[in-house]
């Protein structure tokens, strides 16, 4: 248990330099021209002296660059995420955006993992059979596909031609609601983006689980367990599967990062008003405080997810705790 705690502590300590690096990169990106106000002004058409003064105050333009960085970081740590150039404080918006993103990402993660594991095991147990070839072929197409393109195809087929499901947004702004009520309306909006996201991340998990499972089934301990009389079922689903899944847990953490990072394109395709969509809107209109805040929030979410899943990994694999 002490090993586990110190492991957790080390993981949290590692998150600190990552967080600092991220804040520096984010700050540098938005200050790349030397003067963020000039950058922002590229996107603003009616420039009054008042807006200019407000912008200079917002970005602490009177200070040297490193002081600006610390002022910005300190604001961020105090929950002051800055002022959107177009629509009020960022802090008041970021929670609903995050919730909307997670409403899509978490079910997609659970579904793709839940379907991907049994499918990968199935495929590995029948290596080189017709069903295995079908699964692996589909999966390699899945990882070769831009998620948002599959989204566009889904919209063309299921929304525009068949009229079964809505093509944009997370809810209908006004009646008539899909399938009669507000909850069913939300569900109708969720189905297409969720299916697309699940299908594409499913492909990754199937390939990983299949490869790890094939590897595990070849290990000496599987041979030894079978030779000493354990049932094939027990050997496959207890020993081999646990060994195959354990390393995937950390990859779930990393892929949560890439899922979140993939959110801009997918959310834009479905006009899904989450962090990714708002990031694209803000970056396009050069609303820098929003861009900075979303970048930081996404990174924090990824770091937290990684620590959580590393903890799960350490619980599953006793060897991790000592190294």
């Amino acid at each position, binding site marked *: 248990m002490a090993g586990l705690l110190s492991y957790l502590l080390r993981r949290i300590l590692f998150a600190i330099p990552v967080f600092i690096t991220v804040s520096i990169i984010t700050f540098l990106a938005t200050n790349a021209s030397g003067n963020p106000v000039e950058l922002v002004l590229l996107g603003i058409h009616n420039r009054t002296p008042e807006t200019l003064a407000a912008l200079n105050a917002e970005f602490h333009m009177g200070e040297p660059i490193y002081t600006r960085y610390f002022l910005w970081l300190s604001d961020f740590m105090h929950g002051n995420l800055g002022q959107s150039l177009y629509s009020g404080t960022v802090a008041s918006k970021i929670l609903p955006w995050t919730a909307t993103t997670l409403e899509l990402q978490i079910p997609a993660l659970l579904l793709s993992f839940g379907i991907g594991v049994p499918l990968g095991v199935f495929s590995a147990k029948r290596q080189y059979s017709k069903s295995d070839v079908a699964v692996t072929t589909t999966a390699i197409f899945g990882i070769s596909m831009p998620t948002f393109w599959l989204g566009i195809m889904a919209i063309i087929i299921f929304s525009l031609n068949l009229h079964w499901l809505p093509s944009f947004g997370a809810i209908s702004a006004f009646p008539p609601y899909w399938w009669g009520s507000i909850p069913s309306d939300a569900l109708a909006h969720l189905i297409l983006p969720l299916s697309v996201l699940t299908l594409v991340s499913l492909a990754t998990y199937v390939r990983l689980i299949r490869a790890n499972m094939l590897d595990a089934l070849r290990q000496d301990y599987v041979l030894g367990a079978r030779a000493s009389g354990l049932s094939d079922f027990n050997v496959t689903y207890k020993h081999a599967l646990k060994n195959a899944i354990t390393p995937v847990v950390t990859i779930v953490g990393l892929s949560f990062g890439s899922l979140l990072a*993939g959110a801009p394109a997918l959310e834009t395709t479905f006009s899904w008003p989450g962090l990714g969509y708002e990031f694209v809107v803000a*970056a*396009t209109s050069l609303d820098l405080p929003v861009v900075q805040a979303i970048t930081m929030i996404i990174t924090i979410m990824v770091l937290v997810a990684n620590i959580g899943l590393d903890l799960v990994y350490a619980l599953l694999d006793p060897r991790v705790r000592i190294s």
Partner: protein
Amino acid sequence: MQEEVLLPKHEAGSQRGAGQWAVAWRRFKRNRSGLAGLAMVGFFAVLAIYGLFLDPVPARSFACLYQGCSNLPPFTNWAHPLGTETSGIDVWQEIIHGSAGDLYVGIGATAIAIALGVLVGAVAGYRGGVAGALLLGVTQIFFTLPVLIFILLFARIGTLLVAQGLGLTLIVAILGLFGWSGIAFIVRGEIFRIRELEYVQASKSLGASQSRILFRHIVPNALSPIIVVSSLLVAGNILTEVVISFLGFSDPSASTWGLILEEGLQYVRTSWWVSFFPGLAIIFCVLGFNLLGDGLSDALNPRLRE
């Protein structure tokens, strides 16, 4: 007294003389999906060369707007086999010109990532102490970051600030700068693994210099995992480029597949073909690199397969 018991009359294995690469190529030739991947990559390479040097139709030509052939559905006019956009742009021509752009981004960014990754990985593997630990930490940070968000951020701001003429080169640089961490881990891991092997120990005891060991033993051995990962990295870089262009964050004057998809989403209600065919091009090009990577992995690391 020594008695000669056994004379090696013939070489038992027949693989002597054929180098490691020839053996790998023989193995690769038997791998149908790997060959299919090579064929797909080759197809797009030919398309890219044709688009760059031979194609009489320039990229992003709006000619159809004036000739009355805009918004044609596919397979209706053989001058425009895959249809045209409302703006008059020919979808097939854009696929041709886009393959040059996307292969440039995919391969160029991978080349930068390999150079950086080998450098960082080699130094991190060889230097112990603070420098090694620091580089390892930096590698881990870049590995953990949701890099796509940063790539999008830099692409958007970079494209605005840097001269427009730079086109896709800016994207190549950004993707390369954020994409090296996996390669660095591989190189560092290989250095640790290979350093322990007997023949390196042997050449060390024979007094071979560090750099000789690095280039004679470690680099050739690390090459095969790097080649495999590079192929997969090209695939990933193309997908990322597609996202950047789709979101409108790259140079709008450069032809890429993502840019057509952006226009495709605008015309999604009227012209499905503007999204559909470029998407197929992306899938088969990325699939080609993925299959090639898997095939190379099987050919170069036969132990991974039974």
